[in-house]
Every structure is written in structure tokens, then in C-alpha cells.
């Protein structure tokens, strides 16, 4: 279970992690922890699946990258194997089943528009199902943190 220290770590480190030679030591100090204690806590949170990852959120368009939201209408009896095909691509960042006729929703992110299009073409070829490609036209808001 998470305790108050875990919550404080999550709240603090969602806002940003230091870029320095000993970043865990720098981040641990205001939390009243040692460097080792902080590393141990983060390891635990990661093992328990609380953290999806520990890394960057990037503006992919700034270096030629591309991402898109994709939907498919998958017959229920084919759902498992279609999900396996979709998730087998490292370019697929997340995939959710949702309660709608378009029942599978996933994000494809790649180093270029071309690569993302290749993945979509391959998904269609391997599943025999059409994909609905819905890249963002405009971003109004991206929440960067949630309250632990």
C-alpha cells in the first residue's frame, strides 16, 4: 500500500526530476529522504505498477516524430488476437478497450509520419480490419500531473 511518503514522492517527481549529476540525492533532500531511500521507494512503486514509467514527455513534432490516435471496430470473438497483433508493435504506446462500436483505441508513436503509416498499413493487412486514423489537429490541453 502507498503511504504518505510515497504520495509525497509522486506529487514531487511528477513536477520534474533534476537534471544533475546526483539527481536522486537532490530530489531526496526536500522530501527528507536519503538518495538510497528514494531510489528504493521508486523501485517499489514501479514494481507495484503505480508508475507507468520514469522518463520524459516529449514534443515529438519538434524532431520529426509523429503520433496518432487510432480506433478499430473489432468483432468480440476476434478481440484477443487482434489486440495481440496491435500490441506487438513497439510503436503502440497504449491500447484500451472501450464500450463503443469502435471498441479498440490505441496510440501509435514513431520517429516519423512514414513509420506510423507503415504500422497502420501493417495492422490492417494482418487483421483484415480497417483502422480509423485520427491524428491531432490541435492540442488545447495536456494534463501533466495527477494528485496522488
Amino acid at each position: 500500500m502507498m503511504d504518505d511518503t510515497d504520495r509525497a514522492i509522486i506529487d514531487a517527481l511528477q513536477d520534474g526530476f533534476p537534471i544533475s549529476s546526483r539527481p536522486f540525492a537532490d530530489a531526496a533532500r526536500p522530501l527528507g529522504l536519503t538518495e538510497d531511500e528514494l531510489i528504493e521507494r521508486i523501485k517499489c512503486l514501479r514494481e507495484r505498477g503505480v508508475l507507468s514509467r520514469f522518463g520524459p514527455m516529449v514534443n515529438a513534432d519538434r524532431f520529426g516524430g509523429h503520433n496518432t490516435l487510432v480506433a478499430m471496430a473489432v468483432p468480440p470473438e476476434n478481440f484477443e488476437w487482434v489486440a495481440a497483433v496491435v500490441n506487438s508493435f513497439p510503436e503502440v504506446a497504449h491500447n484500451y478497450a472501450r464500450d463503443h462500436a469502435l471498441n479498440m483505441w490505441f496510440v501509435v508513436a514513431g520517429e516519423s509520419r512514414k513509420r506510423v503509416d507503415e504500422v497502420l498499413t501493417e495492422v490492417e493487412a494482418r487483421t483484415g480490419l480497417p483502422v480509423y486514423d485520427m491524428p491531432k489537429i490541435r492540442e488545447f490541453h495536456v494534463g501533466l500531473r495527477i494528485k496522488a
Partner: protein
Amino acid sequence: MGVMGMGVMGMGGVGMEVSDRDLDLISALCGGLPLDSRPYQALGHAIGMGEAEVLERLEALRQAGIIRRLGIIVRHHELGYRANAMVVWDIPNDEVAEVGRRLGACPEVSLCYRRPRRLPDWPYCLFTMIHGKDRAQVEASLAELAEREGVAHYPRSVLFSVRRFKQCGARYGRRQAAE
């Protein structure tokens, strides 16, 4: 537009040439920061870059808004936000910018994007994400938001997630470096 525009404006970043070395670094970083007392040294080691150079490049990438944030990214579900709804709206094209700005500013809304319609199957062009402890809470906050913001009359659909198959970070960078 979109992420790029916000990065430039939001961070006050200036144009920055992203080199192949930077892409290698971004790609390595997307795989996760090592839980090591000197993580940037360890990260650099994997791509043949010294710690000082890693720190310098990361700081530049952050200031330019190419790295929007570096830190921990948590799963809503594991923090007790068990219901997640993608709420999609069919808004006339000449109103979507204004409505998008308004909904994007709401505390209940964690993501807000304009995306293309895919007619005839998909008439919705504004995508918002709302999280809550359970479905009832999400539905209540959606109803409240729709009234308060004067958007209740637009056609909308609520797609709750019923299962999460995969959730990891996007991987970017040159393929040879990412794989």
C-alpha cells in the same frame, strides 16, 4: 500546430536544431531513466556520451520545449482513479476552437484535442479525457461540466475504458537506437 505550437509558446523556447546525437539521447531516455545514483552517466554510457554532455543536452532540450517534462508518470488506475472516460463531442468547425479552449481549461479535463471526424462512422471532432474514482463520479462531473460550460446541447458520446491492454511510454528516436 498543437504540441509543437504549445511547446514553442508555452516554454518560450526558441528554435533548436535536433541533432542525431540528441535523437539518440531522447531515444535512450524514452526507455526509462536508470534507477542508479548517477542515472545520466549510466544513460550516456549506453550511447557513448559522457555525463557532462548528457546533462548539457538534456537541459537544452528541456529549455527548447522538446522535452516537455522529465519525471515519473503514474497510472491513474493504480492511484484509485479507476474510471477513465474518453468524452467526444461533435462541435461545428467554426466553434470548435473556442469550445476546445474552454473545455481544455476545465479542472475535470486532463486531455483536450481536436481530431478529424471519420464520417459516416465517427462524427466527433473534439476529444476530452475525464478520470474519476468510478463511473458514477465521472458521469456526475461530466453532467456538471456540460451545464456549467454551456456545451450540453452538442452531441457527445462517452467511451469508458473497459480494459487496458498496454500502457507504456511512446518511443521515439532513430530506430537503430530504439531497438
